[in-house]
């Protein structure tokens, strides 16, 4: 369960609640993700998947409960959380690449400005990751000149450059055409094989089957059920889960 041999989980959510105005989007979520574990989160639209993953990354501030990354609690204070959050990288549904920078600059930007790394070093690292997602030849292009799948792979490379120990994915393939979904999923499978801790919100159940250590099913701001994929798909315990699976499979 803990390949890196460290104590404590990589991510730990204890009773996390989040309100938008008076609407409660997360209702006391408890979740622990071990180092190196790969968790797939699924559930109907509006069930709070995105909200949860964005709380882990502090793009949204939760109002109750604790979130701990590698044992260190987030306090909501940007300056103090920053070093903790450096352990996480995030990939968005809509890529969110910076359109005014080349692919390479997208990847080196944070390295030079956040990690204060010399340009040459940053470029070396960026190229290594671009090779890993197999688009080194696109380095000099601008994001809008790439296809959606390529853009998403750049986004993954960009997140990887910061050498995070945890990668968060929020529906990374849902804005893509079918062929492109395939290339992004392949990249993610490869990434999973390196033992990185991953939390993936996705409806790609094929991916969940092959890669996930655990599938978490959410509905209405709660975690309904979580299980190893084999069990989850073959024998869901709740009828809500069954209904959901019948719809998307």
């Amino acid at each position, binding site marked *: 369960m803990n390949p890196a041999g460290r104590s404590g989980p990589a991510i730990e959510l204890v009773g996390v609640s989040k309100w938008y105005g008076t609407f409660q989007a997360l209702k006391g979520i408890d979740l622990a993700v071990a180092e190196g574990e790969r968790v797939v989160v699924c559930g109907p639209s509006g069930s709070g998947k995105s909200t949860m993953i964005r709380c882990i990354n502090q*793009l949204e501030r939760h109002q109750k409960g604790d979130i701990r990354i590698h044992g260190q609690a987030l306090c909501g204070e940007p300056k103090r959380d920053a070093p903790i959050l450096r352990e996480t990288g995030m990939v968005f549904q809509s890529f969110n690449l*910076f359109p005014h920078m080349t692919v390479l600059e997208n990847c080196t930007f*944070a390295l030079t*400005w*956040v990690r204060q790394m010399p340009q040459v070093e940053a470029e070396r690292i960026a190229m290594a990751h671009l090779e890993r997602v197999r688009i080194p030849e696109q380095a000099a292009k601008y994001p809008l000149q790439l296809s959606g799948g390529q853009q998403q792979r750049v986004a993954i490379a*960009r*997140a990887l450059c910061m050498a995070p120990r945890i990668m968060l994915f929020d529906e990374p393939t849902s804005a893509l055409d079918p062929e492109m979904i395939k290339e992004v999923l392949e990249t993610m499978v490869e990434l999973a094989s390196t033992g990185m801790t991953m939390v993936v919100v996705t409806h790609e159940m094929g991916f969940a089957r092959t890669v996930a250590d655990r599938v978490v099913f959410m509905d209405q701001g709660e975690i309904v059920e979580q299980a190893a994929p084999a069990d989850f798909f073959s024998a869901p315990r709740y009828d809500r889960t069954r209904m959901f699976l019948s719809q998307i499979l």
Partner: protein
Amino acid sequence: MSDATRPEPLVFAPKPADPPPPSSIGAVGWMRANLFSSVPNALLTFLGAWILYVTVAAVLDWALVKAVWEAENRRQCLDMVGRAGACWPGVAAWIPNLIYGLYPKDQAWRIDLGAVLLVAWALPLWLPRVRSKVAIGLCLVLLFPLLASYLFMGGAKGVVWTAAIALGLAAFLWCWLTALAEMRRGISFGALMARLLGARDDARAARIGQASLLALYLVALALVLPLELVEVPTRLWGGLFLTLVISGIGITFSLPAGVLLALGRRSEMPLIRVFCVTFIELFRSVPLITILFMFNTMLPLFLPAGVEVNRLLRAIVAVCLFASAYMAEIVRGGLQAIPKGQYEAAAAMGLGFWQSTGFIILPQALRIMIPSIVGNFIGLFKDTTLVSIIGLFDLLSMSRAVGEDTRWLGLFIEPFFFITMIYFVFCFLMSQYSINLERRLGAGQRR
């Protein structure tokens, strides 16, 4: 089903294209489609042609055909053609004043030099293969004023000012050296120096790069130190020169101020937001002329007794504040056009507020805003005519002075017509440029 069971396919030979019916092409077709497609359309065509003829012919007749080109004074013009034709010699005699104002004519080369420097500095921005365009552009906007201010004002330069002028000059030299280096070798000036001096590692190269910048600054300082220019007080500035100075300062100041105000308006801190909103709305809701009036008559009241604020400066302050309020709204529009995902991506990568604003959001927003900024600049340029109402000798006031010259007393329409042309040419070129830019940017957005 196998191919054997199918008959041999027929070969499709496309018909050759026929020429279109004559009535739909060529001059006739064009006229039928564009001028005479229906009876009302034909009537409109005649109406339009008539309007065109009447206006253009009248203006040409007065301005060119009946005009007087050589005369000693206005009386001679009047004796020759009365008022049926323009009297151009008066305008010609005043052209230096219309351009430079009362700036001493033996010093006018300084203004010319300033203009040449400006154009030369901006030139690399249009050259292909120059990569440091952003840096050059920033240098131009921030450091050209240092150089230009001394060039135009002259007088005694203290230590600080000398250093500043040298900085401007060094920046100019750096911009051109970098542009040349990048065009010839594809590397920056610093890197080129490093390569020429045979730097072995990166650290050494970086140090050589810095040293060459320092050397450049020292060279500039050496050039600047012996430079002595006579002082030309700003009250002698005027004409087109003054118009350009006011609008140029207005736009360069208003851009950063507008950015700050727009950020303030979006701030989550209520007091700052309220302050920015009040400022923007106040200055946008009153006419520029009232702001000019206020600054002209009231600024001396606002300041401690004895503090004397140059009249030009007062007008410039008024124009700057006014322009900032407008610019703030343009910037706000630009910021709003940036999707939220960009902020989130920046935050997820660990960038702070100023880093993500400065490197991610603003560069994109500014690019979207360029056409509006040019539009704002045109507006500002036209609005500078108002400073004539508070008695600065801008282009318009200068044109009025022509008619007060004893020799050309009463010459009013001709200089007026002349400066209208100047304004039109400037504004028209700028607006065409902005339309062009808009088109290019639009094309860029669609990959």
